[in-house]
C-alpha cells in the first residue's frame, strides 16, 4: 500500500464528509484540499463558496489565500461579502463549513482569539474572522486541528466560535442550529455524543495507539465502543493530492489545519 503523510490522511478523511450537491464554505489548507479532492472524485456537483465572495470556484492553481485571484477567474459568481454572510450563511444555504483554531475543547468550542486572559493575553491570536458566524450558522461544521494537550484542552481559554458550549442542550436553547459534527486530528477522528454533546473518539489513524491519544488530550476522553481504524487514503487520492492539488507540497509539508 501507498505511503502517505498524516495531512494527506486528514484530507482524505475530511473529503468523505462531503456529499455531491453540498454547498461548502471553504477555508485554506486541509479544508480546501479536502473539498477539491471530493470535487474530483465523488462530488462533482459540490458548490464551493469562499468568504471572500467567490462562488462556484474552479481554481486553476492551489489558492494561497481565501481571496486568491484564481478563485474569481471562471467562477460562477462573485458577490459582496455582506451577501455571503446575510444571503448564504445566515439564510441557511451553507451545508458544511470547515474550521480550525488554536484550541478545541471537550464540547467542540473553538478558540482562535487569545491564549490566557483576553485583556493581558499570553498569546494574541488572529481572532474570529468569519469563524464565529460559520460555527453559528452553517448546517454542519467539520473541525481540523492537531492532537495535543495544548490544542485539545478540557475547556478553551476563550470561546471564539460556539460548539455545544457546556454540552447537553445549551446550544439549542440559545437558538443555534447545526453545530460541530466531526473533529479530525493528526491522530484520530472524533464525533459528538447526541446527548452529552461531548467529543467521542470514533477512529484512530493507522499506527497510533489509544494510549498515545489519551496522553495527548486535555481530559479523560470517551471512546466509542465500535472504535475503528481511520481508512488510509487510496492511491488515487494520493495521486490527485500530490499531482493536481498541491504539487509543490505548500500545505501538506506544513502542519495540519
Amino acid at each position, binding site marked *: 500500500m501507498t505511503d502517505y503523510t498524516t495531512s494527506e490522511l486528514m484530507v482524505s478523511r475530511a473529503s468523505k464528509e462531503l456529499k455531491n450537491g453540498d454547498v461548502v464554505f471553504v477555508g485554506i489548507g486541509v479544508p480546501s484540499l479536502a473539498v477539491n479532492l471530493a470535487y474530483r472524485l465523488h462530488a462533482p456537483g459540490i458548490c464551493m463558496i469562499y468568504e471572500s465572495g467567490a462562488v462556484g470556484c474552479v481554481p486553476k492553481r492551489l489558492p494561497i489565500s481565501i481571496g486568491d*485571484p484564481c478563485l474569481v477567474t471562471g467562477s460562477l459568481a462573485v458577490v459582496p461579502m455582506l451577501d455571503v454572510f446575510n444571503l448564504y450563511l*445566515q439564510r441557511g444555504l451553507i451545508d458544511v463549513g470547515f474550521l480550525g483554531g488554536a484550541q478545541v475543547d471537550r464540547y467542540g468550542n473553538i478558540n482562535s482569539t487569545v491564549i490566557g486572559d483576553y485583556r493581558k493575553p499570553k*498569546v*494574541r491570536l*488572529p481572532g*474570529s*474572522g468569519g469563524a464565529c458566524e460559520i460555527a453559528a*450558522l452553517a448546517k454542519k461544521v467539520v473541525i481540523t486541528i492537531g492532537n495535543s494537550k495544548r490544542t485539545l484542552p478540557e475547556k478553551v481559554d476563550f470561546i*471564539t466560535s460556539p460548539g455545544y458550549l457546556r454540552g447537553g442542550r445549551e446550544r439549542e436553547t440559545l437558538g443555534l442550529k447545526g453545530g460541530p459534527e466531526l473533529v479530525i486530528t493528526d491522530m484520530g477522528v472524533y464525533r459528538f455524543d447526541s446527548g452529552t454533546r461531548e467529543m467521542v473518539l470514533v477512529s484512530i489513524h493507522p499506527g497510533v495507539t489509544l494510549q498515545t491519544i489519551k496522553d495527548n488530550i486535555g481530559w479523560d476522553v470517551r471512546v466509542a465502543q465500535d472504535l475503528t481504524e481511520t481508512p488510509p487514503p487510496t492511491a488515487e487520492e494520493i495521486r490527485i493530492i500530490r499531482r493536481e492539488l498541491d504539487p509543490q507540497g505548500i500545505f501538506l509539508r506544513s502542519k495540519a489545519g
Partner: protein
Amino acid sequence: MAKLMTMKEAIARFVRDGDLVIMEGFTHLIPFAAGHEIIRQRRRDLTLARLTPDLIYDQLIFAGCARKMIFSWAGNPGVGPLHAFRRAVEQGKPRPLEIEEYTHFGMVLRFMAGASNLPFLPTRNYPGTDLTEVNPGFKKVRSPYADEELWCVPALHPDVTIVHAQRADAEGNTQVWGLYGVQKEAAFASRRVIVTVEEVVDASVIRSDPNRTLIPGTIVSAVVCEPFGAHPSFVQGAYDRDNDFYVKWDAVSRDETTFQKYLDEWVYGLPDRAAYKEKMGTRVSELQADRQLCDPVNYGF
C-alpha cells in the same frame, strides 16, 4: 472643485491626525500606496478599522500612526501572525494599541449600518461566543414580531475611507470587478472618500457599463491615479498577489530592526508609488496578469 490629485495631496487634505480611517479591500485591492503615504506624512493617533488589518495596518502600527484598531481577523493570511500588531497588544510597543474586536459579519454590518444611517443592524449570529462578553459594542434587541432576541452591532461612522480600484473617472465614479469585499459599504458610511485607481478613464468608459460602478462620484472627495497601488496585494485583471512578499514578510516583520529597515528603504526612502514601482524592477512584469476578457453585453434599447 477638481477631485483628481496626487496621493501626497489627497492624504494631506483628507486624512487628519486622530481620524477614524478605513482602508478596505479583502485580499484584493488593498490600498498599500495610500498606507505608505500616511506613514510618510507621519499621521498620528489614527483609529484604524478593517476586517483584516493585514500587512498594511501592521506597517501603520509599527510606524506609530495608530492609537486604536477595530478589526475581526489580524493575521498574515496563510503565513502567520502580524508581528507589529502582536508586539503592540502583548508588549505595548511602539505604543499601546487599544483594540475593538468583532467578526467579519459584524464588521460588514457595522459598515452597512453606517452607510444606511441606521444606529445598528441585527443578526442571528453571536449566541454563545465570548466576544460579546469582552466587547460592550454588542447589544441585544427584542424582536417586535416574535418572542426572540437578536444581537446587534452599532453603526460605524469613519472620517475617511480609502479604497483602491481598477478604474474611475475624474469625478470618482469607480468600477470594480473580481472580489468586491466590503468597499461599497465602507465608502457610503464615511464622511470623506479617497479613491485610488490603476487607471483614470474617460466618463464614457464608465457609462459604457454602468452596472459595474461600485462607488458613485457623488460621495468621493479625491481621485488618485496610482498604478501598482495595491502591491503586494492584487488587482484582478492587472497584477497577481505577490505571495512571496507575504511569506517573506514574516521574517522581515518579526525583527524590529529589519522591519524598520524595510520602512526606511521602501516608504520613508521613496517619494511616491511611481518610485516604488520603479524600484520593484522586473517583479512588476512577473506579476502582470494574463489576458482573459469577459464577453461584452448589450446596453442598447
